[in-house]
């Protein structure tokens, strides 16, 4: 294992192709200047970062596989490609012949334009560390419509490690792709993961990205993602938040091209003392762009969820249509949800809306269901199922939704059985 210092950086540089080295040097300089975020910073005000990145080290190798049953991969069926990024080291297991689906570490200068570095190093210390120390990941470049999904397992398993998996995707004009990211780590292992997911969509391109955040209960995951969307192109990003001690996802979508659109779905269940933190920025830059964010989540016991949503509509982004909705179920007195929708509108011809709600299960619904003979526990389970179903039914890749329903249901049933919900 290698600490986050100059010698580890030099080691990372030594395995990188020469053309990648200068930008990494700059990132390391930024890393050296930054410290852990101050809780007073607006970007971190709801989140208790009770760890220091300096206490974690870069793993020496890919390490052990995560020993947890993998129902998602089995449910997916036929895939266009399968890759594994474990403890920062990538293996391509299978791939459709005529696309670039490769290890980032192998990328040559001819792939330079496919590596976007869309997330700036100076976003925070995590991004700087990612750019300075991360060496591998998955490069996907698609130039035709492909309906079967690409499945990427992102695993971390080495105790005390910090890894920097990267997924960089480009979808050419009028091409399309679907990517499922399955994030997992053991439940009993303290570790940090800083994934970056970036994508660029050409004109008329379509990309759906489904992120299954199923990290172990002692994992701190600081995810960063940015998508740049071309003319008449469509991005769909869904995140299913189930695991982690702390999971943060900082997502930025730039709707640059005229007529581009974005659909962001989220469904999450915070249990015990988990923190699930979503920080979403939707930038409408081109004309006639449209976006929807729709996130629903439940928190129980002492869990915390945070949704900070920003819709920014630039001056030239006329005839924009933008909506964000965040609904939270608070299942215990000790649980909390923060929901902060923001609008910043510089154009004058727009349709824009936002809403957020939080509260317990609806007593009128409970009464109605119990009047049909369902006991209270059963009635509440049905209500919770319905709450999540509104998002789950809209997820892309419906073939994986059955295990998701089971997971959410099991979490609530367990919380009921252990008396953690009211």
């Amino acid at each position, binding site marked *: 294992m290698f600490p986050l210092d100059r010698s580890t950086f030099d080691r990372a540089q030594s395995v990188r192709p020469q053309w990648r080295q200068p930008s990494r040097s700059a990132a390391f300089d930024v890393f050296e200047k930054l410290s852990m975020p101050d809780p007073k910073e607006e970007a971190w005000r709801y989140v208790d970062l009770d760890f220091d990145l300096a206490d974690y080290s870069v793993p020496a190798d890919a390490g052990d596989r995560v020993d947890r049953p993998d129902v998602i991969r089995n449910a997916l069926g036929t895939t266009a490609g399968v890759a594994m990024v474990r403890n920062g080291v990538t293996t391509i297991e299978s791939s459709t012949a005529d696309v670039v689906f490769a290890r980032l570490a192998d990328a040559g200068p001819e792939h330079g334009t496919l590596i976007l570095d869309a997330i700036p190093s100076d976003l925070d210390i995590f991004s700087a560390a990612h750019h300075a120390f991360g060496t591998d990941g998955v490069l996907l470049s698609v130039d035709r419509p492909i309906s079967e999904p690409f499945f990427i397992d992102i695993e971390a398993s080495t105790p005390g490690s910090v890894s920097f998996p990267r997924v960089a995707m480009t979808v050419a004009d009028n091409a399309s792709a679907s990517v499922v990211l399955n994030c997992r780590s053991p439940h009993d292992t303290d570790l940090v993961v800083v994934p970056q997911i970036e994508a660029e969509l050409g004109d008329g391109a379509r990309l759906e990205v489904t992120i299954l955040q199923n990290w172990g209960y002692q994992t701190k995951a600081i995810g960063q993602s940015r998508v740049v969307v071309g003319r008449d192109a469509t991005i769909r990003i869904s995140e299913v938040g189930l695991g982690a001690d702390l999971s943060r996802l900082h997502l930025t979508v730039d709707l640059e091209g005229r007529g581009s659109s974005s659909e962001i779905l989220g469904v999450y269940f915070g249990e015990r003392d988990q923190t699930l933190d979503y920080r979403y920025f939707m930038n409408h830059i081109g004309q006639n762009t449209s976006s929807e964010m729709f996130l629903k989540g439940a928190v129980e016991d002492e869990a915390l969820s945070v949704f900070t949503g920003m819709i920014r509509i630039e001056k030239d982004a006329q005839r924009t249509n933008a909506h964000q909705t965040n609904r939270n179920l608070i299942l215990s007195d000790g649980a909390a949800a923060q929901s902060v929708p923001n609008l910043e509108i510089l154009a004058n011809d727009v349709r824009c809306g936002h809403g957020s709600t939080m509260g317990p299960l*609806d*007593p*009128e*619904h409970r*009464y*109605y*269901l*119990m*009047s*049909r*003979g*369902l*006991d*209270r526990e*059963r*009635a509440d389970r*049905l*209500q919770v*199922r*319905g*709450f*999540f*179903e*509104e998002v789950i*039914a809209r997820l892309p890749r419906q073939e994986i939704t059955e295990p998701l329903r089971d997971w959410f249901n099991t979490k609530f049933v367990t919380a009921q059985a252990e008396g953690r919900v009211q």
Partner: protein
Amino acid sequence: MTIALHVDNLTAGLGELEILKGVDLEVPFGEIHALMGPNGSGKSTLCHVLMGKDEYYANGSAHVAGTQVIGMPVDERARAGLFESFQYPVEIAGVALGELVAEMREVADDPNEFDKRVARQAEALGMDRFMDRPVNMGLSGGEKKRSEMFQLAIAQPKVAILDEIDSGLDIDAVREVAELVESLRSPDMGVLIITHYSRILRYMKPDRIHIMLSGRIVRSGGPEIAEELEASGYDDIRRQVVAAEADGSAGAVT
């Protein structure tokens, strides 16, 4: 033999506010009764107090097929044989009617018999196309009542209370609902229809009609009461009651 619903000196209210001031009511098996009264008379409160909605306090007794239900949780009342069809059935996003029916099956006495009822009633009431749709979402007033009638039929209760069964319906839907209720008439069930207007009674023949005013049942009788109401409204009955009470108290003083 026991009667389907036997309410005896039921008082109930919300906090300091007493709404039901001693209700006595009997609905025998095989009969359909109508409970009528103006807004605010306590009809809907009676429904919710019988079903056990938890914001109300209640004293007195209500027996469903011989079981005292006051004090029981809502679901136990349902399993004792009580069914309420709601005036405003809640819309439950994300829960398909079929899922609710599957949960009802889990608590049914005889799941196989339940399945048969579901198959039979879904066909009879044309409910198949609603099974995959969220409970009550986007349904017209008439469709909601039909869904309630379907759930009633598959629950096979001993007592069915239909709260404002005709509210918000156009005249064709009122007739349809009335015919549905008549078709559900059974020697194993007593039915109490709660209604503000007498128009639904043009399409069905209740065995008895009860008039509720200010938290009490003040008149009970045959279908002729509906005709009387149609002619002169609740005010006339209220005047008669007030006059009778004045006579009563004058008598008590002397």
